[in-house]
């Protein structure tokens, strides 16, 4: 092998190895977890009349939302499980449950890989990037490459809701309702279309099922459950 072939060859081996290490690094989701993206239909093509209707619907929701809704939407930019504490109870606060927080941090990271993979597949522009003039008040303005479909917050909100429902089964309905709300706040904030949010729910619901089928996840969940039971009023 000539030297000029060796460098690219070594480079591709290094890439392969790091990709493998990456795949192996997922603590809960299996290697084929991204198959779940096959559940999502494609979003409407950019510029189609359906896409335009979605943009109009998003603008209507965003421009008529109250200052209070906009503030909540901003507050949930960094969505955590503690946004669910109005449902769970005031005792459920950050800094007190290290095992629970570590579990959901890992869940968040793994779910985000999935929603980002979907975003990269469809490359749908955010409402405020597709139509900057109508969305100056959007709660955030990211680069054009921060894509819209599916919504990562809706995915995460629903994964959190379904998994928290395992810890607090008596609050299941209210938790799922809050998970739904996490997504809708993104439309009110002007950063997502309604069908981004719908797709995030489909994805979040399916991912929650996948997390629950992992034995390692179940082990960590049981530890979180014990940690919470000890502190519960």
């Amino acid at each position, binding site marked *: 092998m000539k030297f000029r072939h060796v460098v690219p060859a070594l480079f591709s081996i290094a890439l392969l190895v790091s990709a493998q290490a990456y795949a192996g690094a997922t603590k809960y989701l299996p290697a084929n977890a991204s198959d779940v993206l096959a*559940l999502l*239909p494609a979003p409407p093509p950019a510029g189609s009349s359906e896409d335009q209707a979605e943009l109009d619907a998003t603008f209507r929701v965003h421009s008529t939302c109250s200052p209070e809704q906009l503030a909540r939407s901003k507050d949930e930019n960094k969505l955590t499980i503690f946004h669910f504490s109005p449902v769970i109870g005031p005792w459920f606060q950050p800094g007190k449950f290290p095992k629970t927080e570590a579990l959901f941090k890992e869940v968040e990271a793994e779910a985000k890989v999935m929603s980002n993979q979907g975003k990269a597949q469809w490359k749908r522009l955010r409402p405020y990037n597709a139509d900057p003039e109508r969305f100056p008040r959007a709660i955030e303005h990211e680069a054009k490459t921060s894509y819209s479909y599916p919504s990562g917050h809706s995915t995460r909100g629903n994964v959190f809701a379904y998994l928290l429902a395992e810890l607090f089964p008596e609050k299941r309905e209210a938790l799922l309702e809050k998970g739904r709300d996490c997504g809708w706040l993104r439309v009110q904030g002007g950063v997502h279309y309604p069908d981004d949010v719908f797709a995030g729910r489909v994805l979040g*619901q399916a991912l929650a099922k996948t997390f629950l089928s992992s034995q390692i996840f179940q082990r960590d969940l049981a530890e979180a459950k014990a940690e919470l039971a000890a502190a519960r009023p």
Partner: protein
Amino acid sequence: MNTGSCLQLRRLFFTAVFLFSIAAVPLRALGPYLGSNAPNALLLLPAPPPAGSVEDLADRDAAYSVFLTCTPEQFALGVAQQRLNIFHLTESVGPWFQAGKFPKTEALFKQVTDESFLVSRPIKLVWKRQRPYITDPVRFAKVIEPDPNPTPTYPSGHATRATLYALILCELFPEHRDEILTKARESGWLRVQGGVHTPLDIFAGRTLGQSIAQAFLRSPEFQHDLAEVRAELAAGKP
């Protein structure tokens, strides 16, 4: 344990099994293709927003603005596609592909339709979401399919079937994939333009249709019959 209570227990057990299987029937397709591989629509689809919630009202408002801009041509197309069939999606394939000429093809899609109904119809009854023209008869005065007592609206059966038909047709006419998928997308959207569905109903129908199509394509019996259909079409192609 005496024989009497043992018998009672057995009877109880069989009654439980019987009741369970009745309860399970509406969610399981029983046709020869899907069998137990039918997607569980209840696990797949998120619940629609509660009636009267801000999201529900926003979705109905979105439906109304689309309905308002419906052209007479779109309205007529919506009426024409009330009984949706595969030929509504295959204009790009060519005039040779017509109803009445390909019995195996039509029989396959008839079976696909029947089995998909077993999945999509019962699921509407779980959520009982109401049609836009039922909750708001004043704004949705003249819709493409006025029915005083319609089936619930979520998910859209037309969007489900259009997506399902399209994904199977793409297996038969891969060179027309884009045109067929565009037609299917339009078939779903015509239901919003025609005032009988909201956008959310359509997204849900597409999601369900896609999963049902994947389930058909995984069935060896379906693939066997699909190969025969392919041969029938190859023989009839100009």
